[in-house]
């Protein structure tokens, strides 16, 4: 109510979403969507929403509502369901959405929103009411997506987290009790009480080792199955030796018990791993690559859908009726649009451009079954596989593990030979525990996850994380020219104000009918030079591929095909009745950021080269413009591939695919995701080379951090090993120190990345 007292002139932000109201709009709302949502909420007596929003702090910027008519046709077999909601931004949303059971008492029993994940869990009273619920949420300005069984990946993670937490809690409870039992034992209690506490700590240690600690058994088992030395090997060995030796001591009455160290070790290990897992999930889940392209499509398979112009298609399907143009550049990198006929496939992620008639498509695949979704799935699979196995297990941690285990076995044999069994066991336990390379093995993937997360935020999709590891060893960078250093988009150089108004409108009317890149460039020139023209309705129009555009309305007009001039630029000529009116020079503009980035790269010590298939002239002029001394021209793909071996290649995912796959580090900045993902290790979601700098810097940071982690844990392990073998370290202290050292390594890595961002 407070808002309406203000004079309408003073209100420049939307009453619903707080975004600026466009100047051409009257009233208090930025769009019709926001206005209708406001009306709906006011009518429902939910005006408190706006009060709460004013008082509270929004943690995400609210967005204006795009109100296109959506219909929901969800089918659900269960009462408890979840929606992922778009548009949730602050506590006012929480208040509003949790009013659902009150507003729809006949449909919704209970509901609760998780602000962190934007997931609304609700319980239905009637299964068929789900679409009404979705509609109501949509009317309130949020777009709901039903989380179906097939993509309940999060649910799996949730379950696993719950299990880990339970294991951890149980291990913690046991540890604290065993610790208490140990106090009287260490302070020298004798007789019945000694037996009581010893037996009790034995009984308590059993569930700790075999229930909470079952994850160690599992890890070792799966390690043996894949024929690698399991990271948990020495730990499990230590646990088993401690348990059976203590049990043996208990039976024979030698009072050499390690149940306290055993349970403490299990608890601390589980705790540090739980913490690490949550850390990695929080960095991985929110970036969920698929979210970027989350489909808004709510139809079902088999539906016939009409394509909307200039809209991203949300499903895979087959054209059934009509003809039109489609932009496939997302997949192929080919910026020329593709003609669609009946029977042609269309894919999610491509953009439908233009049609003289309605185009109807039969839906065949939706959601995470589409080609785009599968492609992205593949990337994230490759990512997780590469980081965890190749980077960790292949490195020195394997050798370290074997070394430590054999030292332990040899020294155990030595102490057995000497007859000092108890002393030997104690030293070996401490050794096995303290030298566990878990810190290193678990921190390495964390470093890569953090690096990939920060890069993805900026717009770089890393397919092969090891490219980050390789980059610091390389000095030569090769840039492709067209589309990489240049816009890859033709720019028309023509002074339109010099030609007569009639000819202007003729030229405009010609090019607006064509999808050729040169025509697009000329059309843009009209917009850039702010020339408004009439559109001539042609009696006759023809586009001859590779020749030009021809039209007639009283006079014959033509725009003939672009020719390559001596200067290396292309030129086309516009004529009326066969007489040239003007010529248009079409050139590829250098990207505005290229010069700065090249200079920064040189400052960082890189040797920069241009590698192009183009003629000498344009390559040379570009090189001098950017201050690059080394350039190669007229190179075919095979020659390019030969040149870039062992270097960094930055180019087009399609034309340079061979060179990209042969180079040591490859970054595709253009050319469609599908090709790029196959040939390049890194794909830039933004066109242009602006993301190269963060990539280079992050790669160097990764190298530094890995080195730092290695130094930290090696020196720690070395000191620990000496202390424990010489008998100066108690297994209990080792059990505390080991997870503590692991955490310091994690934190050290985290801090390095936090500082940066």
């Amino acid at each position, binding site marked *: 109510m407070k808002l309406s007292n203000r004079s309408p002139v003073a209100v420049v932000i939307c009453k619903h979403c707080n975004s600026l109201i466009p100047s051409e709009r009257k009233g208090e709302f930025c769009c019709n969507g926001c206005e209708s949502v406001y009306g709906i909420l006011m009518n429902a*007596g939910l*005006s*408190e929403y706006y009060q*709460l929003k004013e008082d509270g702090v929004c943690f995400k910027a609210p967005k204006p509502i795009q109100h296109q008519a959506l219909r929901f046709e969800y089918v659900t077999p269960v009462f408890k369901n979840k929606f992922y909601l778009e548009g949730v931004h602050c*506590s006012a949303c*929480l*208040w509003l959405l*949790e009013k659902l059971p009150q507003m729809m008492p006949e449909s919704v029993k209970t509901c*609760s*929103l*998780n*602000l*962190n*994940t934007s997931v609304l869990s609700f319980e239905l009273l009637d299964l068929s009411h789900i679409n009404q619920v979705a509609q109501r949420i949509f009317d309130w300005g949020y777009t709901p997506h039903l989380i179906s069984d097939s993509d309940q990946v999060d649910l799996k993670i*949730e379950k696993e*987290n*719950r299990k880990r*937490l*339970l294991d951890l*809690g*149980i291990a913690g*409870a046991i540890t*604290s*009790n065993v610790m*208490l039992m140990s106090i009287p034992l260490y302070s020298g209690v004798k007789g019945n*009480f000694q037996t*009581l506490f010893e037996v*009790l700590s034995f009984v308590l240690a059993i569930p700790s080792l075999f229930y909470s600690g079952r994850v160690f058994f599992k890890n070792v088992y799966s390690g043996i199955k894949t024929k690698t030395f399991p990271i948990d090997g020495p730990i499990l060995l230590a646990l088993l030796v401690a348990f059976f030796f203590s049990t043996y001591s208990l039976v024979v009455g030698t009072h050499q018990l390690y149940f306290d160290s055993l349970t403490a070790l299990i608890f601390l290990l589980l705790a540090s791993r739980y913490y690490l897992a949550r850390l990695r999930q929080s960095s991985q889940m929110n970036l969920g690559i698929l979210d970027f392209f989350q489909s808004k499509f709510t139809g079902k398979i088999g539906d016939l859908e009409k394509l909307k112009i200039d809209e991203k298609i949300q499903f895979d399907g087959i054209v059934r009726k009509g003809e039109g143009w489609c932009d496939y550049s997302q997949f192929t990198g080919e910026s020329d649009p593709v003609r669609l006929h009946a029977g042609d496939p269309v894919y999610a992620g491509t953009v439908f451009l233009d049609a003289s008639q309605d185009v109807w498509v039969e839906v065949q695949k939706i959601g995470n079954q589409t080609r785009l979704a599968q492609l992205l799935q593949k990337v994230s699979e490759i990512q997780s596989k590469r980081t965890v196995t190749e980077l960790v297990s292949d490195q020195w941690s394997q050798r370290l593990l074997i070394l430590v285990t054999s030292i332990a076995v040899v020294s155990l044999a030595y102490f057995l030979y000497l007859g000092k069994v108890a002393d030997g066991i104690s030293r070996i336990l401490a050794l096995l525990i303290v030298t566990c390379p878990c810190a290193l093995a678990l921190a390495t993937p964390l470093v890569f996850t953090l690096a990939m997360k920060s890069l993805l935020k900026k717009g770089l999709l890393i397919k092969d994380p090891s490219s980050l590891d390789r980059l610091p060893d390389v000095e030569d960078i090769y840039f492709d020219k067209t589309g990489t250093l240049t816009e890859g988009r033709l720019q028309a150089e023509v002074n339109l104000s010099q030609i007569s108004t009639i000819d202007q409108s003729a030229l405009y009317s010609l090019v607006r009918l064509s999808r050729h890149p040169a025509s697009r460039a000329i059309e843009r020139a009209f917009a850039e030079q702010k020339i408004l023209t009439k559109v001539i309705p042609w009696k006759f129009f023809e586009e001859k591929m590779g020749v030009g555009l021809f039209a007639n309305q009283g006079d014959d007009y033509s725009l003939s095909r672009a020719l390559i001039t001596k200067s290396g630029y292309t030129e086309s000529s516009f004529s009326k009745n066969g007489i040239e009116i003007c010529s248009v020079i079409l050139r590829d503009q250098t990207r505005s950021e290229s010069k700065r980035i090249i200079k920064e790269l040189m400052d960082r010590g890189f040797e920069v080269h241009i590698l192009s298939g183009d003629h000498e002239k344009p390559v040379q002029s570009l090189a001098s413009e950017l201050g690059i001394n080394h350039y190669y021209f007229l190179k075919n793909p095979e020659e390019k591939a030969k040149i870039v071996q062992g270097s960094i290649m930055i180019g087009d995912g399609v034309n340079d695919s061979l060179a990209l796959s042969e180079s040591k580090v490859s970054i595709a900045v253009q050319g469609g995701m599908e090709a790029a993902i196959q040939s390049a290790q890194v794909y830039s979601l933004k066109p242009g080379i602006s993301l190269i700098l963060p990539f280079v810097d992050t790669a160097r940071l990764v190298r530094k951090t890995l080195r730092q982690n290695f130094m930290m844990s090696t020196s720690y392990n070395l000191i620990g090993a000496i202390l424990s073998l010489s008998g100066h370290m108690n297994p209990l202290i080792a059990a505390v120190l080991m997870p503590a050292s692991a955490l310091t390594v994690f934190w050290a890595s985290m801090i390095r990345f936090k500082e940066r961002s």
Partner: protein
Amino acid sequence: MDIIWFLVPAALMLGLGFLGVFIWAAKSGQFEDLETPAVRMLFDEKTSEEKENVK
């Protein structure tokens, strides 16, 4: 000192009780969303009189 024979089992039982509470809390999902409940409790429930005033 005989009291220990009673105290130790009592302490263990007490610990077991709290462990049970923890297991119940974890299984009912109380540790999954740590952020929203803190915000949710700040909303004032309106009394029925106030609601009528709004209308």
